[in-house]
């Protein structure tokens, strides 16, 4: 696999990392995502890491970088699906990913980055439901 696929859903970009990836692939994802944010005008990026058995300092830094770059490009990033053992290990490693928003699952993640964006979206491929706007 040369690239991790990036899907577009409404105004959000979705990435699901399903296999153990090497460092170059992780760097490529960082670059690809930045380009897609600008090309699509996406307001949110959701990264599903439920398939990852570990997150080490390199991958942690990559997630942090993606969140920081997205923010500069006017998009919110949320990381979803972190396994409990991964969370415990990351904290012990010394990485608490303070710059990255997280959500337990895809549904909650979409609510987080979807908040306040659908009303201005007039496309016909708008995602169904999800935006309950109960955060106010």
């Amino acid at each position, binding site marked *: 696999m040369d690239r991790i696929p990036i899907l577009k859903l409404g105004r959000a970009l979705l990435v699901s990392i399903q296999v153990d990836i090497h460092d170059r692939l992780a760097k490529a994802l960082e670059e690809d995502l930045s380009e897609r944010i600008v090309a699509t005008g996406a307001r949110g990026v959701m990264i599903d890491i439920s398939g990852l058995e*570990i997150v080490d300092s390199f991958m*942690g830094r990559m997630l942090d970088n993606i969140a920081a770059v997205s923010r500069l490009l006017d998009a919110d990033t949320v990381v979803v699906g972190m396994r409990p053992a991964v969370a415990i290990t990351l904290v012990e490693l010394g990485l608490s990913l303070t710059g990255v928003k997280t959500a337990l699952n895809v549904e909650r993640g979409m609510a987080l980055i979807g908040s306040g964006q659908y009303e201005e979206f007039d496309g016909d491929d708008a995602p169904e439901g999800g935006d309950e706007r109960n955060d106010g």
Partner: protein
Amino acid sequence: MSATTDEVLPIRESDDVVRVRQAVRVRAVAAGLGLVDQTKIVTAASELARNTLDYGLGGTARIETFTGSPERGVRLTFADNGPGIPDLERALTDGYTTGGGLGLGLSGARRLCNEFEIDSVVGQGTRITIARWK
């Protein structure tokens, strides 16, 4: 305590770091480590394998499973013939890096293991042994 399995993997390129992670996972499962312990030793292995590649200019990872009472677990040895680490104490400090990383590799790996030993000679290389048991 006796070593029941023993394998040595090369670390020469980025893909090898992935292979080391996967092999360590298999051994950790075989040793009977729980999920959190598995995750910790695999994560530590990933940090050290990457260090072996990036700073040690390549080397090897040796994976041993030991069974005994009361301890069962995995012991890993990362060895390279790279430039060595001039200031070990500093290298083990959180946030200190001579590369582009976060400086959490060594110090973090140490926190994730029950046993951590480092032996480095400038100009000759570095050998790090870690173990995690239940």
